[in-house]
């Protein structure tokens, strides 16, 4: 909401400082986002008094004056204005001042007389067009006082951030009311300059139909339009609005159009009541009807766009056609033009939901729809309507054709709410006295009706506060007006909640700390991506094709981040992410989500060191497998890794796929090294408690064996056999320590070296015992796997 400081000053009958206004409004819940100057900046001008005036000896039209501008020096100033008088005060531009038109005031000599500065007219200051001479200042201010102290120079526009519940703050009156409460001063409507004397009786009350100025007014859709006031003004002269009215509209950022339209806009910004004026001569069938749109109806709105009206939309129509979308925008066919002489003025209340739906359906948001959606004051509409009529007659002439009418088919009153002071204390935590509570409610314009015996306060809510519908709303108002800052901030006793941390939280934290400890950096990528698998849920209304589907895996996003790093010439990338992935459930197609953890690495495994000549080994798949193993321990301890179709697949206890690891395809520059990554579903049904195993008492014996295996035999099969058969011979562990493929071996074979660790829990093993165990294992290998031992 754009607010004019001068407009507020007119309400409050006092000068205001915009910074102070901004602070007060913020503390009342309507922060000011910005304060912008409107119109000219007069800060460079001062008040000056003319001490002496004499005729210029060589120019009839010029006077030579002596001017005191408070600087201590009396200046000689040549002046062309006929109204300059000794003893009067005028705005003065000292040497060096830049005028609104860009001219810089410098010493000049006019026909032999020196002029050091300039006495200014209103036009020269950019304040108006009345240029019959200097702007005479009626002020007690001393010479040298800033001009802005004595005249309304430039206005200021306050951009007020109005929350959706505060319809009343969309008019200057509502803002003024809040400020008045904050400042403890009264407020009332500004006077209308040159207001026409007008006998304006209260509009006659009707039901859903009324005659007005020879036109039939009817409400066919009472739910959509609970109240409709109308009047016909004949004989208006369409033209430009007076300067003051144009200035008000300019200050709130609205373009002046013509005096009638400007008058309706003025009242809207003053009282939050949108109005509309129709050219009465263009109404077909002499009728105005509020009804639901029928199928196939169209309208060209004021913005010149031809629109199909969705059936059921609330419209204003004449006898033949819609002439306006109720509460949103009027139609071009009936708009007030330069040739209009008779108008029908509409002032209505519309159902906020109907207006919102129409606005959304048409994609047409206006100052009017913004206000109707938030709720106008249907009970205050009469006053707004009367003010608008007075304003139109004042600025455009004309006269009402017969009495104005007020169709209010089902009259209602603003709600009455009962407030318990005990409840105020229960919610706010402070005991406020009855009078304190009442004072805050009176400040918002509520009426305290009575004090019933049951300890409750009966409150009549003002009509401009549609947001106040229950006791808690009143409690908020009490706290708001009393001041949040005045409430204490002492931390009281509390019962701790009985809930434990969500188990997923601890798991996520462990994963993050562990992977960061391994030198990887956590990344957060957007879960919406451009493309994902067939089972990924789609967004119904994506903002862009880049974000049209939800990811069903982390790795593609991580690889994408690797590519982005490559684009920045970064070769060493180590990333991990913990986040949700999304899938359509297999059975019913409903979108579901799963927590995943994933990582990706490329480039050097460690920073290059001079001992290696500045090179470093790159990450390889075995590093990735190690990280994957570590990740599984943290995120999914029950999962096992299997080799499937050239990559490592993790499967949970039930055999379902839980993750994968391997090399990643990427759009790599030639200098980049290979990318490896993995991801795993995170489970959080409790981590196993480590079981203590007694520490070994007797020493171990270690033997390395080189085994000759066929190329299609896996090391897993060999180590598994050794583990199984070796257990009863005291074989504690088996690890693969080397692999050899080469010409030295028979075709179709390779060699792997394993390290066997033997240990007994009862005694120190002797060499013969170990040799005997190895001999047994050799037999098993040869017999069961056809694997021979090359050497020991």
């Amino acid at each position: 909401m754009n607010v004019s400081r001068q407009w507020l000053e007119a309400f409050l009958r006092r000068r205001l400082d915009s910074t102070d206004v901004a602070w007060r409004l913020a503390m009342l819940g309507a922060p000011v986002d910005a304060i912008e100057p409107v119109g000219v900046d007069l800060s460079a001008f001062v008040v000056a008094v003319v001490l002496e005036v004499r005729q210029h000896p060589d120019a009839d039209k010029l006077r030579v004056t002596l001017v005191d501008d408070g600087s201590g020096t009396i200046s000689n100033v040549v002046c062309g204005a006929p109204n300059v008088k000794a003893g009067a005060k005028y705005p003065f531009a000292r040497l060096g001042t830049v005028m609104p038109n860009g001219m810089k005031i410098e010493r000049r000599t006019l026909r032999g007389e020196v002029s050091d500065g300039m006495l200014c007219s209103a036009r020269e200051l950019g304040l108006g067009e009345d240029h019959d001479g200097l702007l005479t200042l009626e002020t007690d201010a001393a010479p040298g006082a800033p001009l802005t102290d004595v005249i309304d120079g430039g206005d200021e526009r306050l951009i007020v951030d109005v929350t959706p519940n505060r319809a009343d703050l969309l008019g200057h009156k509502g803002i003024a009311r809040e400020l008045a409460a904050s400042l403890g001063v009264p407020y009332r409507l500004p006077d209308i300059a040159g207001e026409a004397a007008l006998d304006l009786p209260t509009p006659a009350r009707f039901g859903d139909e009324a005659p007005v100025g020879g036109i039939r007014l009817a409400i066919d859709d009472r739910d959509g339009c609970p109240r409709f006031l109308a009047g016909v003004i004949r004989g208006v002269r369409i033209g430009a609005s007076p300067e003051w009215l144009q200035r008000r509209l300019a200050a709130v950022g609205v373009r002046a159009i013509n005096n009638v339209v400007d008058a309706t806009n003025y009242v809207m910004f003053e009282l939050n009541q949108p109005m509309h004026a129709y050219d009465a001569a263009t109404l077909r069938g002499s009728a105005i009807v509020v009804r639901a749109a029928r199928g196939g109806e169209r309208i060209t709105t004021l913005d010149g766009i031809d629109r199909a009206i969705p059936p059921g939309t609330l419209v204003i129509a004449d006898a033949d056609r819609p002439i306006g979308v109720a509460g949103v925008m009027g139609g071009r066919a009936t708009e007030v033009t330069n040739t209009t002489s008779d108008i029908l003025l509409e002032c209505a209340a519309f159902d906020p939901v109907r207006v919102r739906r129409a606005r959304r359906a048409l994609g047409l948001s206006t100052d009017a729809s913004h206000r109707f959606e938030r709720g106008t004051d249907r009970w205050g509409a009469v006053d707004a309507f009367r003010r608008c009529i007075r304003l139109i007659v004042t600025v455009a002439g004309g006269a009402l054709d017969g009495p104005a009418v007020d169709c209010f088919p089902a009259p209602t009153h603003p709600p009455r709410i009962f407030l318990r002071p005990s409840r105020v204390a229960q919610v706010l935590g402070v005991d406020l006295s009855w009078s304190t509570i009442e004072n805050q409610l009176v400040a918002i314009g509520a009426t305290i009706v009575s004090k019933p015996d049951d300890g409750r306060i009966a409150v009549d809510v003002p009509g401009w506060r549609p947001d106040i519908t229950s006791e808690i709303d009143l409690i908020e108002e009490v706290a708001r007006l009393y001041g949040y800052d005045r409430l204490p901030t002492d931390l009281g006793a509390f019962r701790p909640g009985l809930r434990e941390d969500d188990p997923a939280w601890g798991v996520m934290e462990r994963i993050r700390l562990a992977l960061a400890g391994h030198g990887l950096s956590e990344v957060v990528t957007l879960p919406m991506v451009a493309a994902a698998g067939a089972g990924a849920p789609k967004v119904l209304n994506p903002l862009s094709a880049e974000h049209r589907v939800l990811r069903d895996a982390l790795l593609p996003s991580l690889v994408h981040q690797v590519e982005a790093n490559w684009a920045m010439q970064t070769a060493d990338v180590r990333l991990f992410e913990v986040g949700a992935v999304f899938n359509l459930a297999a059975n019913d197609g409903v979108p579901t989500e799963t927590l995943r953890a994933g990582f990706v690495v490329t480039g050097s495994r460690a920073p290059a060191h001079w001992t290696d000549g500045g090179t470093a080994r790159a990450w390889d798949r075995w590093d990735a497998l190690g990280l994957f193993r570590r990740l599984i321990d943290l995120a999914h301890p029950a999962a096992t890794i299997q080799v499937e179709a050239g990559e490592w697949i993790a499967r949970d206890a039930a055999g379902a796929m839980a993750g994968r690891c391997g090399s990643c395809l990427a759009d790599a520059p030639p200098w980049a090294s290979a990318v490896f990554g993995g991801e795993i579903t995170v489970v959080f049904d409790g981590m196993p408690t480590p079981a203590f195993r007694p520490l070994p008492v007797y020493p171990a014996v270690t033997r390395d064996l080189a085994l000759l295996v066929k190329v299609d035999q896996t090391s897993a099969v060999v180590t598994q056999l050794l583990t199984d058969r070796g257990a009863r011979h005291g074989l504690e562990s088996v690890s693969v320590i080397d692999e050899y493929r080469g010409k030295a071996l028979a075709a179709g074979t390779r060699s792997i070296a394993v390290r066997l660790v033997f240990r007994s829990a009862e005694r120190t093993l002797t060499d013969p015992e170990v040799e005997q165990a190895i001999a047994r294992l050799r037999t098993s290998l040869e017999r069961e796997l056809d694997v021979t031992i090359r050497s020991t």
Partner: protein
Amino acid sequence: MTTPSDPASLDVLRQRLAAVASLDAAALAAEEIAVLGRKQGELTHQLKALATLALDEKRARGAALNALKLEFEAAVVARRAELAHAASAAEARDIDLTMPGRQLWVGTRHPVTVVIDEIVAIFREIGFAVALGPEIENEERNFGALNFPPDHPALDMHDTLYLDPRGAEWPVGERLLLRTHTSPVQVRVMRAGPPPYRVVIPGLAYRNDPFDASHAPAFAQIEGLAVDEGVTFVDLKATLTHFARRFFRPDVKVRFRPSFFPFTEPSAEMDVSCAICGGIGCAACKGTGWMEILGGGMVHENVLRNCDVDPERYTGFAFGMGPARMAMLRYGLPDIRLLYGGDMRFLSQFGAAGR
């Protein structure tokens, strides 16, 4: 060989003790055997000889010999360490120790994670636990239960991303969406059992916002909920003031302003004094001296009712804030997109100690 009763032998041993400090490595080894050796050592020998003495003489001389033995042992150890150190220093003289050491990659947690963890830790100190919930929600929990009236302008603040029903009919209220805030988790917590509740809820939220310098279509949020008998607006102010002092600095100034959220009433926003200008007003705080940090309020009666909590008996407060925004403030980040990308040059800046 001296006799056991010869006091001069003690003096000799004391002189040999004094000489240990200047022996070289070979002499030290020889002297250790000569004095302390288990078979031939002089001290060992004299200690054995004590057995032949009378009781009171044995006691006096034994104490002196034992003290001397301990001193001798200590002197040998000290001299050996001194010699070893000198040897390694001599070796090191040939190495350029200013050459760089072998480095490790320093991993980092995400700056927003760091901020969230800190927030969680502060609230944990005052009895809050972590609650989590899904990012896919239905309209009822995201809006309806939280007192968003249908067709209300408040919905404009939540530009919602809906999920494609793929031809299925999702009834109104059951339509699935990406949660626009973490608040549906409040609903889940309250519906899971009776008060008291005291939880903080970190997580991602989604809005149909363009991805630009100050908006991301998915962003971190963290919110809190405390409901019990006797929880008041004063408790809300007190809790959040405590949080601000712990998170920012002990002398931070806070101010509470009225605001509007459908799910709280009274609603408030909390500002903290601008750390950059100290409250005088600068570009970062738009000249106000204040930074808007979080929103909150008393849980709306309708929300409690919608979660089967009796609002006449229980009251409570809720609040929410954006850790990404707080990270941007803390680290002076110019563009929120840095936080939703994987640029190593950015992420690796958050690995140093501290916060």
